[in-house]
């Protein structure tokens, strides 16, 4: 089977690869990973010798990118502060403490660490923006730390 023009390969696999990445990484991170997957595929495409197993090949690239993406420390992560203190606490252990936070901080902390949303998404959920969401989560975490130390 000869290698089809890249357009055909892309059209055939983009939807399922994107769904796969959304399941692995969540929607926001899936978009970057999607682009990276198909750019990487495009770079390697002319080296393929035939058009067999292209679906498996696409999944292999997407999985590797999803794994890298998981390992990559997030520049906006706040938890290392806490982790440095006494090991990274599971969110479940913090949840009861979060109940006592002011509503905005509580929502920001729960969405960030309980549901793994990024700050842009939290900003939308709170009706503000990413910066405000980050500040709220950060203030909430500081407050929780103080409580934990008490």
């Amino acid at each position, binding site marked *: 089977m000869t290698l089809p023009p890249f357009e055909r390969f892309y059209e055939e696999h983009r939807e399922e690869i994107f769904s796969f990445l959304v399941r692995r990484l969540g929607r926001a991170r899936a978009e970057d990973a999607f682009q990276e997957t198909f750019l990487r595929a495009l770079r390697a*495409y002319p080296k393929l010798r035939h058009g067999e197993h292209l679906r498996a090949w696409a999944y292999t690239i997407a999985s590797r990118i999803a794994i890298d993406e998981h390992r990559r420390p997030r520049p906006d992560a706040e938890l290392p502060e806490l982790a440095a203190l006494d090991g990274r606490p599971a969110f479940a252990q913090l949840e009861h403490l979060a109940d006592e936070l002011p509503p905005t901080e509580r929502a920001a902390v729960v969405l960030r660490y309980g549901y793994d949303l990024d700050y842009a998404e939290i900003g939308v959920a709170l009706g503000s923006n990413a910066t405000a969401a980050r500040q709220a989560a950060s203030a909430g975490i500081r407050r929780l730390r103080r409580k934990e130390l008490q």
Partner: protein
Amino acid sequence: MTAVSPDLDRRFRDAAASENLLDVAYDLVDTPIGTLLIAATERGFCRIAYDAEPDRELERLARAFGVRVLRSALPIDPARRQLDEYFDGRRHRFDLPLDIALLADFNRRVLRELARVPYGDVVTYGELAARAARPRAARAVGTVMHRNPLPIVLPCHRVIGANGKLVGYGGGLERKEALLRLEGALL
């Protein structure tokens, strides 16, 4: 719903083009004489097709230039813009890089002469053959016109029979007539 959004799709296609990862970029361009499939390599525009069957056209482009064929509006924009101006009557000359390196010498020579035939003018097959230094090759010039990879931009519609008849056109005689009418070469 986790469908690829049009925005994400476009971002990928733009990125593929701007990182120079494509052998051929192509897009569909609407004009008053129909939708054209226009393709470009990194050296220049290589194909303008009337009534293209995308599957067959993409296969042909992949065979000729490489398998990394992807629809991407960005590299095609200059042609889209200049064709808009042409069909508005605001442009008489195309200023686009062309990639005709894969054509045979004779075809390239004829097409280069063809490119010099000005807007609003016509030339006969025999005359064009003479200009390409092959005065008896009118029929061969006809074949080159019929296989012109870049109609409109390389104006094979300006080539007519010695008797003044339009003779033929890869995109159909109606289009040849429409183009010549637009240019004021036909009343």
